[in-house]
């Protein structure tokens, strides 16, 4: 789910870069407010690399397989480092495997990164919003929400960008129908991603809870 070069008009690419600039600036500002921002750089960097590598893991759904995006999980684990991490990860993907593109780097970072920040806030709100739920369930449910919405929103942005930007000649009803079917088509993917995120977060909670402290 990366938008390659050549599809989007220059204005949209520029807007993507502008949003990415602002989001990065905002994230860095939040990070620099921490007591010792330098201390978190190695952690964020190695986890960025790990996420990049983990995005090659796929879940077999014969006869095909589902690749995970993990942007919700990134938000849950890395907090405000998630946006820079996604930016860097996409940069590597564009350079190393030609996945995505350089002109669309800003757009792709926005598409993945903003939902990741949202997932972070959803997960962090679990103790406030989810009080009624008992502990492991609460973490699981909010991790699920973070993962599913992280992917779901990214997918919606992706579809909107594609549909509204390519075929100017497609008529309005066809357009609506396409958006609708494709969005519905993404629901199972969001469920898989959410479930996977929940399983993973529950595993981390058992084995290495420090990783979830944000």
């Amino acid at each position, binding site marked *: 789910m990366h938008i390659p070069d050549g599809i989007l008009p220059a204005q949209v690419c520029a807007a993507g870069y502008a949003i990415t600039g602002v989001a990065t600036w905002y994230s860095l500002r939040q990070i620099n407010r921490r007591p010792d921002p330098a201390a978190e750089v190695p952690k964020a960097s190695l986890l960025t690399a790990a996420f990049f590598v983990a995005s090659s893991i796929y879940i077999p759904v014969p006869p095909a397989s589902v690749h995970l995006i993990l942007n919700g999980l990134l938000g849950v684990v890395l907090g405000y480092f998630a946006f820079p991490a996604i930016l860097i990860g996409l940069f590597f993907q564009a350079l190393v495997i030609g996945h995505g593109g350089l002109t669309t780097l800003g757009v792709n970072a926005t598409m993945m990164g903003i939902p990741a920040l949202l997932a972070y806030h959803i997960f962090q709100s679990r103790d406030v919003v989810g009080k009624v739920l008992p502990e492991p369930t609460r973490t699981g449910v909010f991790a699920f929400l973070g993962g599913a919405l992280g992917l779901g929103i990214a997918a919606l942005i992706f579809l909107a960008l594609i549909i509204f930007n390519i075929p100017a000649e497609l008529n309005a009803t066809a357009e609506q129908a396409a958006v609708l079917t494709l969005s519905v088509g993404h629901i199972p993917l969001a469920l898989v991603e959410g479930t996977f995120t929940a399983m993973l977060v529950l*595993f981390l909670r*058992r*084995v*290495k809870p420090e990783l979830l402290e944000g």
Partner: protein
Amino acid sequence: MMMMDSVSTGLNPVAIAQGQRPIAIAANALSFGYPDQPQVLREVTLTVQEGDRVGIIGHNGCGKTTLFMLLCGVLTPVAGEIHLFGEPLTPGQFRPEVALLFQDPDDQLFSASVRDDIAFGPQNMGFDPAEVDARVTQAADMAGIAHLLDRTPHHLSGGEKQMVAIAGLLAMTPQIILYDEPTASLDLRTRRRLIRFLQNSTETVLISSHDLEFVLEVCDRVILIDEGHIIADGCPREIMGDQTLMEAHGLEKPHSLIPHVESHHGE
């Protein structure tokens, strides 16, 4: 560097092949190289009988790990073929009769509890839950880690992790176990425990190690690899005791084979 033709002391692979015990591993003219690199192994032929305990020695990068990866079907040889108990090995195929202990136990412990981890293999082999449980208990007993079953593998010490990883293999009742540098960062007590364990094990065992004293205590046959060839294959004490041979291939004669009465140290 000096090159030597295969020096065979004591045991001769062809003679072994005609011996009475069945053949566990038969590798024939095995060659392998990583992409864009010179070949690591060149026409290696190797026969291991059931119940053998073979040590594989050689300097860093001589191809010990690569050989193990080939023997368990993780890597595909460029040429040559491997038979395990007479049946050809197809790379990628799951052969529960051969198990590999990775050098770093963290590479093979993934579960949230020791019990789940040991159960991983039997579950994938399709046993029913009762059988899985029985195998977990038995393997844990054999490896001496029954008291750790409810712990998280992550929080164990290095030596404990090692034994849990071994239990994970034993639960699959393999007939061949490949141990890749099992003593690398064990202390002497844990190393001693491993020596006892291996001396009593009944599987066919291959051990790659830089710890020659360890090989000497555990193995009844040793194979020296250098430049992609088997340089020597035979009785451990004869091969490792041969100072010229060892030094020609970047190794040292182990201290316990050097005849001396408290001397030669502290220049």
